[in-house]
C-alpha cells in the first residue's frame, strides 16, 4: 500500500559514517534476495563513501543506493551494486533521485561509463535505468541462482573527443549566419 507523502519531504544524504551502515544493511537485507555479509557493505562504503546515498522520510531511512567505481580493463567505470527503496515509498522517483546523485558523482569523478546487472523480469528497474540512458548491453543466461536471466545495463557518458562531422556542420552553419563569403573548406576547422 503506497504511503501518502509529499516528495519534498524526502531528504537525501551522502553516506557519512558508521551510523549509516546498519540503516543500509537493514534496508537491503529486507528487500533484496541476495544475502550480503557485513564485509561486503564495508567494502563499498569504506572505499567509496561519496557514491552511497540514503533517502530519509521524517527521520526514517526509506531508500539507499550503494556503488563503487574503478578501472576495469582500461575503462574507468562506475558500478551500481545495490539500490533499494521501501515498498510503500516506491513509484515516487526516490530511486531515480538516489541513482542520479550517484551517477553525477561518477561523471564528475571521470568515469567513462556506469554499469549494473538487473533481472530481466525486473520491469521497474529496467524502466528506471532506461529513462536515465542505460542500454541493455548484454543478456546473461541464467545469471541468478534461481535460473533467471539478467541484463547488463550500461550508461555511456558523452566523450569529450571532437566529432568532426558535427564541427564541419556547425562551421558551415556559422558561415551562413555571418555571410562573410568564405567557402567552408577554407575555414579552419576547430
Amino acid at each position, binding site marked *: 500500500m503506497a504511503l501518502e507523502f509529499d516528495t519534498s519531504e524526502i531528504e537525501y544524504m551522502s553516506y557519512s559514517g558508521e551510523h549509516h551502515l546498519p540503516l543500509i544493511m537493514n534496508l537491503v537485507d529486507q528487500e533484496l534476495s541476495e544475502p550480503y555479509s557485513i564485509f561486503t557493505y564495508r567494502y563499498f562504503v569504506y572505499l567509496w563513501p561519496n557514491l552511497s546515498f540514503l533517502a530519509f522520510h521524517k527521520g526514517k531511512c526509506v531508500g539507499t543506493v550503494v556503488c563503487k567505481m574503478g578501472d576495469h580493463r582500461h575503462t574507468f567505470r562506475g558500478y551500481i551494486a545495490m539500490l533499494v527503496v521501501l515498498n510503500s515509498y516506491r513509484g515516487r522517483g526516490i530511486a531515480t533521485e538516489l541513482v542520479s546523485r550517484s551517477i553525477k558523482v561518477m561523471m564528475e569523478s571521470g568515469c567513462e561509463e556506469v554499469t549494473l546487472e538487473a533481472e530481466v523480469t525486473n520491469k521497474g528497474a529496467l524502466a528506471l535505468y532506461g529513462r*536515465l*540512458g542505460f542500454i541493455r548491453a548484454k543478456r546473461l543466461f541464467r545469471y541468478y541462482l*534461481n*535460473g533467471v536471466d539478467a541484463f547488463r545495463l550500461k550508461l555511456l*557518458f558523452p566523450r569529450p573527443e571532437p566529432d568532426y562531422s558535427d564541427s564541419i556542420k556547425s562551421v558551415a552553419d556559422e558561415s551562413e549566419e555571418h555571410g562573410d563569403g568564405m567557402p567552408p573548406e577554407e575555414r579552419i576547422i576547430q
Partner: protein
Amino acid sequence: MAEADGGGDAKAPLNSSIPSGKDTVWFDVSSLLHRACHDLRNDELINGENFNLFAAMSALEIMDPKMDSGIVSTYYSVDEAIENGAAPIPLSFDRTIDVQCVIDIMDHFLACEATWHKGGSLAQTVFSCIYLLRPERTSSHALLHSFCRVIRATCSALVSAVSEARTNEEEDLFTMAYGLPLKVNGDEKCLSMIHAVDETLCRQLKACKAPVSKKTVLEDVEPLQTHLDLEEGFCKAVLCRIRFRKHFYHVLTCLRKPQGRGLELAKKHIISCLSELDSMLKTEEFLRDNSARGTVENEDEKTTASGCQPVGFDSTLNSRSAAPTPPRAIKLLSWKKAVDYFRKLLHDLDVICSYSLDPVFEGALRFVVDVQKFQPDLVARAHIQLLLVQDGKLYGRESLFAVICKAALLPEGAKNHDIQKNESVQQLGQLLITLFRVLCTNTAWQRRKLGKILQDWRIIYVQLELAFRKEFGETASTSVEQDLLLKVCKHILIWVEEQTYWIALRFLMVGFELELYSTDEYCMVYWYIYIILIKLAEKTHLKIMLSNDSSRRKSKKKKGFVKDVGKDYQVPPVVLFLQCYIHVSQGLMMILASLRNENNIILCQGPFNTEHERFVQHFELLQKASLPDHASFFSFTETVANTHFSTLSMHNCFKDAQKIAKELRGSFANDPDRLGELRQIEQVAEHNHVALNLLCQLGSLEPSLKISFDFIHHPHFATASVKRS
C-alpha cells in the same frame, strides 16, 4: 591499517594443552589476535600489500562449508551418513517397502538429472545420492545396483559429449565432476545388467498375471514383493522406469555414432523413451495410493511419483570435498517437471535426428537457426554441434573447402584445387567451424560471440585477397591456371562478404529475441538492419550472377549462342526474399522516425547522455568492423531527419513487401519453413500498412491514443498498432 603478522615485541608462549605431534607444533596466539583486533578501528577490514579489500570481502564466503565453518550440515562426511543409517542396504527387509523405496530413488534421480541439465551441479543433484557415492555397497541389490550403473554411465556419456562440444557457455557447472565417482569399473556392462533385471521382472509380471491353474508351473519365480494384489502394479512401475533408462542410454550412444549413422536408430529409441515416460506417469496414482511412508505436503513440488521423500540423498555431503558448488542448496525440479523436461529434450533430439544432413552450407545454417527456435537446452545443443562438426569436417564427411566451394557456387571440380592448402584458406575453414559452434550456443552467449567474430571475418577477407594475389603471381603460370584461380578467388571472396553480412544481420535480429532493445531504440536498429540487408542482398545477388556468368560463358563456348540477359533476367528468389525484409525494415524505420519528428514520442533522450551514445554502444562492434563502410550516427540522423507521414516511399514499402511475398509463394512451394516465413512477412506488412494509413489520417497522435510495437507476427519485425488507451 593493521597487519596480521607476528609483531616484534612479544613472543607467543607454547601452550602445552595441545600436545605437539610428530610434525606439528602448536602455539597459542590468542593474545596476539586480541591485540591485532584492538588495533583495527571500527569499520576497518584486514588488508595488506597482497590482500586488498576486495580480496578480503571475497574471501569471506558465507554459507559455504569450505569457507564458513559455522555452517552446520547434517553429516560431515559420506561415511558418517552411512554409519548413521542414511543409506541402508537393503532399503528395507520388508520387500514391498524396499521396492517402494527403490522406485522413489529412481524418480528422485530423474528430478536430479533434469535439475543438473538445467544448470545445477552434478555434486548437488545426481551425486547427492549416497548409493552412487559408494558404488560397491549396492552390489547385493541387483535392481538398485544396475540402476545406479546406468545412471552413472548416462551422466558420464553426457559429460563427455558436452565437454567435447566445448562451447564454453555460462553453464560451465555442467561438466564439473571433480571428486565424484563418475566412471566406475563395470559401468560399461550396465545395459546387460539392466537387461537381466528386465527379464526377471517380465517373468515376475507374467507369474502374477497367470491364471491359478498355471501358477504351479511358474512357482519357481520369486515375486518382486510380498503383496500379491499389488505385484502387477509394482512390476509395471519398475519396468517402465528401467526401460526408459535403457532406451535413453541407447539414444545417447546412437547420437554419437560418427557421420550421423545412428540417427535413424536413435529416433526409434526416442519413441520408446517417450512411451515409457507415458507409462511412468500412468503409474503415479498406483504409487501414491500404495505408499507406505509419509507423503510430502506440496503435491506440485514432490520429486517422486508416490510423494514420499526418497531414502539416501543428501545434497550437502559433497560441499566439503568435491567440485565447487554454490553454497545454497538448489531447488530440485519436481518429478512432473522433470518428466516434462525429458519430453522436451527428446523432442529436440528427435528434430536433430530428422535432419537430412544437407551437404549445402546454407542448409546447415538454416537447420541450426531453425532448431534454435525451439530453445533447446544445453544437452540438445551440444549434440547439434557434435553432429555438425566432426574431425574438422561437416558431419564428419565433407571437407570444409568442398563446403566453401559449393556454397560459393563454384563448379564441382573446384574442391580439388591446390589453393585449399593455403594458410588463409585453412583459417577460413576454421572460422566456419567456429561459426557453427557459436550458432549452437544459447542465444544470449551466441549474440556476444557473433559480434566478436565480425572482425575476424573482415580480417580474413583482406588476408585472402593478399594470399590470392600472391598465388596469382607465383604459381598460376598458364592462362588456364590463371582463369581457374581467378574464378575460385572471386567466388570465395564474394561468399566471404556475404557470410559476413549474414552474421551481422543475425547479430542485430537476435537482439530482438533477447529483448535487448527498448522501443525508443527500434528506429536506429531497423535503420541498421535496413542497411545491412541491402549489402547482404547485393552480395548474394553478385554471387549468383557471378556463377550464372561462368555457366553462361561455358554454354556460350559449347553451344555458341548468346542469351539476352536484359530482357529475360529474373531476380533470384532468395534475393527477392531479402528484398521483402528490406522493404519492411525500411517501412518500420520510417514510421518510427515520423513518430519522433511529428509527435515527439519514442525519443531517445536522457539526463546523462544522448542518442549518439546509445548508437555507439549498440553498434560498436559493427562500426569497428566497418559494416558497412560509411555507416555512422551522422548518416542515421540524416536519413531520419526529414521523414514524415506524408513521405510517399514509406507507403509503398509495405505494399511492395506484400506483393513480393505473394509472388514468392510459388518459388518456395516445396519449402514449408520459408512459406511460413513469407506468410509472417505478409502479415507484418499488411498490419503495418493499416496502422500507417491510420496514422496519416489522424494527422497528429491525440493523447488518448497509444501506439505500440509488438512481435505478434514475426519474432524480428514488429507490428505497429494504434489503440485507445
